[in-house]
């Protein structure tokens, strides 16, 4: 008797663990995904432990004209910018902003776009048509241009930046979630849930979405990468994070005038963008292969 209850308890637990474990096992085999994970871990550490690495007020913000435009060396690993601020310190604090804005704006897009996509996919018919045709309008404007327009209207601030990047990514998430829901909603276990009288929102939240997570996770990972890129782009043209707050894109904009003799001034902040975006792309690609081995 006790054996039987034990085994009954064990079944769901082991099954759940093995699924995640399977994915992890496959992911671990991919060198590039591991490289991506290590890279993003380093950036996360930089973001979390930034105050231990550099002093925000003195190194990243305070102007120091005597030390302006110094080449990389022992005192300043990545040199100093046009205001004499330490570029390394500014990159470290910039990591916080980039990761934060990237994750929050994707969360906005995932919540709003995901809800719309799930409703459209689950109910189909007229509702589907209305939602998707409306999103076609958003899709007709290239993502970054939509974000630029929104920030231009609302004004440049970190909140508006996240709203803009978030909204401009809504149609993408709606499409992915809709496709995922469509592929699963006619399966037998959904029918079974309906048959025992589950409500629609319970079915969507408890049965449909958990079973269509794979493509959504992959898409979200890749979108955090492009949101980080969008943040830097908007800041570069003066519509994102405003100076003197250290942000990679606005560091590039500030250093632009000095590239003739000080190329390091744009080299390192740019490399920070490339490496962060690259690491997320590597993880996204690796996850896609690990979650759906058929595609490889």
């Amino acid at each position, binding site marked *: 008797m006790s054996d039987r209850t034990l085994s009954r308890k064990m079944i769901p637990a082991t099954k759940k663990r093995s699924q995640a474990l399977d994915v992890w096992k496959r992911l671990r085999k991919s060198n*590039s995904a591991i490289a991506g994970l290590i890279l993003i871990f380093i950036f996360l550490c930089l973001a979390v432990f930034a105050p231990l690495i550099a002093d925000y007020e003195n190194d990243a913000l305070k102007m120091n004209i005597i030390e302006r435009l110094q080449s990389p060396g022992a005192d300043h690993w990545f040199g100093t910018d046009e205001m004499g601020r330490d570029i390394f310190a500014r990159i470290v604090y910039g990591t916080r902003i980039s990761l934060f804005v990237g994750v929050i704006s994707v969360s906005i897009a995932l919540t709003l776009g995901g809800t719309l996509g799930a409703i459209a996919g689950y109910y189909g018919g007229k509702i589907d048509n209305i939602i998707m045709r409306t999103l076609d309008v958003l899709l*007709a404007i290239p993502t970054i241009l939509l974000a630029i327009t929104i920030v231009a*209207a609302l004004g440049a601030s970190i909140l508006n930046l996240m709203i803009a990047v978030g909204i401009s990514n809504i149609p993408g998430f709606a499409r992915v979630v809709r496709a995922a829901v469509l592929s699963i909603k006619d399966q037998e276990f959904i029918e079974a849930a309906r048959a025992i009288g589950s409500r629609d929102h319970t079915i969507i939240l408890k049965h449909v979405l958990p079973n269509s997570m794979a493509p959504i996770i992959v898409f979200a990972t890749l979108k955090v990468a492009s949101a980080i890129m969008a943040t830097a782009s908007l800041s570069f043209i003066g519509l994102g994070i405003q100076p003197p707050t250290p942000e990679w*894109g606005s560091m590039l904009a500030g250093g632009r005038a000095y590239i003739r003799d000080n190329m390091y001034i744009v080299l390192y902040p*740019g490399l920070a963008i*490339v490496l962060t975006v690259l690491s997320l792309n590597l993880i996204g690609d690796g996850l896609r292969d690990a979650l759906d081995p058929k595609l490889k």
Partner: protein
Amino acid sequence: MIKYVIRRLMMLFPVMVGVIFLVFFIISLTPGDVATIILGDGATEERIKDLREELGLDDPLIVQYGNYMIDLVQGDMGKSYSTGLSVAGEIKQRFPNTFKLTITAIFLSVLISIPIGVISATRQYSIFDNIGMIVALIGISMPSFWTGLILIILFSLKLGWFPSGGMKGIMSLILPAFTLAIASTASITRTTRSSMLEVIRQDYITTAKAKGVSRRSVINKHALKNALIPAVTVIGLEFGVLLGGAVLTETVFSWPGIGRLMVESIQRKDTPMVLGCVIVFALSFSIVNLIIDILYAFIDPRIKSNYS
């Protein structure tokens, strides 16, 4: 075929009407009184009131939108707030430059990406394939404004081969076009490779090989033609990325196109000009996707047969 083209064209109109309304609405959220911005802080209340009336700013948004649409159909996009010049005229003057830049970029990326994608797929996991895919992923991860700055440092400031900005002759086109092309080259390469890989495993490829068709012919005639369909889709989507990228690339290279015009207009709070630029960008993007959809029908007879 004509039926199909007409059907697709009909779909363009409601989307464009929606796009213009959306952009109109977003831009109307701009805080601050337009009349005060145009006239400056020193203006008398009377003049501000007159100008508000003249521009129709006191009308409800939907009426303003209606008036804008009526003007737009006649080719009138209003006047710039900062220069007083016609928006349509300014855009007409700048658009060919953006067109030249984006077309060159997309041409470059197709020219580079399709062969690399095909070779990578036919030699999967070879050194060529591995290096190609790593380079492609790095290419996707580079922001165009940074790539542009690095290219300027290397090829313009250090080597002096190309001008660092402006638009004078073919030499000044090369750096911005390459900058713009990098990201789309990378993603078209990846798509071509993966769709090639899928096609190569199909039965009809095995059949063709078994019949003794030469390797080159199998790849070019049987595989590539079928693999091109997803690649063409990505080219269409990449065009949107390219138009967005043009805003940044034109800023970096001081290229006198509508991307730079848009950034300058945003900085000057020149609403009608911003509105005009976004509309032109969205319209170009929609037209490119229309052309892509029609191209499909040429590449894939199955689509054509659905509509004839």
